[in-house]
């Protein structure tokens, strides 16, 4: 039964997009997205039919939420504070945080210093490429 969730979800998404397009004020501008959404509905219906005809060979993998949640949290904090504290500082913090959390083994000060040094070298490489060579203007924020 859980396998039905995939075709059902596809069908629901296709319908949602079609209704979003049909509710647009100037329908001429929505012609192309509506055609695409209609095609999505047809594909979703075929997938549902496929499921009920027992042709479905769907295989889904479990999502390891406990493993990826810290990373997702780091992503959110990184993007939220990047402009405020500066691109390079926030990137350095995100880099070291990911490595420290996901590196196997116990916390040790010497290891943390090594990670911080690698992070600094990586930031120096990024600074050379993006700021010095390509002259990209990155947000400096409060720090750098």
């Amino acid at each position: 039964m859980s396998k039905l969730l995939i075709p059902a979800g596809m069908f629901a998404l296709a319908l949602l997009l079609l209704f979003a397009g049909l509710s647009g004020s100037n329908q001429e501008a929505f012609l192309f997205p509506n055609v695409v959404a209609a095609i999505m509905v047809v594909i979703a219906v075929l997938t549902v039919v496929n499921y009920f005809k027992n042709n479905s060979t769907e295989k889904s993998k479990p999502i390891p939420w406990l493993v990826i949640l810290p990373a997702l949290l780091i992503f959110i904090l990184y993007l939220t504070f990047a402009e405020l504290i500066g691109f390079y500082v926030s990137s350095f913090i995100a880099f070291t945080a990911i490595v420290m959390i996901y590196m196997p083994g116990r916390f040790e000060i010497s290891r943390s210093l090594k990670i911080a040094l690698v992070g600094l070298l990586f930031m120096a490489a990024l600074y050379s490429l993006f700021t010095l060579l390509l002259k990209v203007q990155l947000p400096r924020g409060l720090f750098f």
Partner: protein
Amino acid sequence: MEFIQYFPEVFTFSNLTILILGTMGGLLLGATPGLSPTMAVALLIPFTFHMQPAPALILLGAVYTATVAGGAVSAILVSIPGAPANIATMLDGFPMARGGKAMQALHYCFISSFIGGMLGVLLLVFFTPVLSNVALKFGPSELFWVAILGVTVIGSLGSGSVLKGLFAGAVGLWLSTIGYDPILGEERFVVTDHLAGGITIIPALIGLFAIPQVLGMLEVTEHQQAKMLALESQSIWQSIKYNFSRIKALTIGSIIGMVVGIIPGAGGQVAGIVAYDQTKKFSKEKDSFGKGNPDGVITAESANNAMVGPSLVPLLTLSIPGSPTAAVLLGGLLINGLFPGPDLFTIHAQVTWTFIDSLIVAQVVMLIFGLTISRYCRFVTRIPQYYMAAAVTVLAVFGTYSVQNSMSDVFVMMTIGTLMYLASKIGFSPAPVVLGLILGPIAESNLIEGKLIAQSGDGFVAYFMSGGINLTLIALCLLSIGYSLVTELIRVKKSRENTI
């Protein structure tokens, strides 16, 4: 034989130095996720302001050639295409690397890039006047059908199921419509200010490939990584022999790359994917594609590099760029006072032919440096996954931001990437979504332009469904759909038999 007459110009000390530095820099820029060939050439144009026309164009041409090939390095080693043109390379290149064949994959990539690239430039040298007329025959209706042909290929890029592949491609097409309507300027599906500029290709490309890859890397245990570190080595000579033994994949890739290159606006991404699809269809080992078949790398790389030379044909003769990067290169020509057309081959013959000759030399330099850096891929494959995940995350953010100096792009990249990670768990693949995003604007703008032309002429059907090129493209679309459906039915039947 003017191209031979101006060959020595490329080998002056300053020109050759610029060419070598441009090629090496191009390989590095191409390998950086987010720095596409178009962006690399655009970023370098200001550097050429104070240069003479010939060295300026040599630099831009060398960077163009090398970034297209360089994008395959990150596609193969970390499953993040350096540019949209390298999506097809990744489909088999990364599984090869994961199977300990990273060096072979990189060898095949650079050798086939060289062969395809040389054929493409030779086409540019010998057939420019003839091919410029072909480019003129592609109007909105033909370009619309080219985009539709690309869409029909989408199904086979899924992770097995044609229906899921087509659905993912349609999602990509739909996502490409977010933002402002190209003709009427009407706002569409802008639910947050971050989407006001729409979803541009590079942030989407980085998000769709990099973020699921990062999260996937963090899932990998130490035991699994130790298994992935095994690396087989292979001599360059063996790789060259193998490459030439795969003549079918090389031929299909090179021919499709050259044809797509001449079509204005299509670009390497379309060339690589169409060539990959066709090689898979003509192969006796279809099931091995997507699991590390070297033919996938060979055909995709020969196609996207074979596109480089021909994409300059309509540019140099008619001012019509054959690819997005060629459009930026047009800016480089104009800055140097070179206006495309007959004058380019008469009054400015020295600059033009030196530039074209430099593309041939750039292919050789690219091959040498590419094969050299292939020897050091073991260092990349030995980096622990948590370091790699952290580096890719930061690089993805920098690469995305630098496209338009926009934080909204970064938010879009991260959101789309996280959703793709979740979708990948239920069997969806990012390649069809990206292809949909790329082809959406081409299909939509040409459909609307064609509709307007048709209204003032014989009508919609007559305009879109007549003429040799239109009918050929429609036939190819039907063949592609029919083939995908038959393959899907056979796959389902086999799968059911195995279950029983």
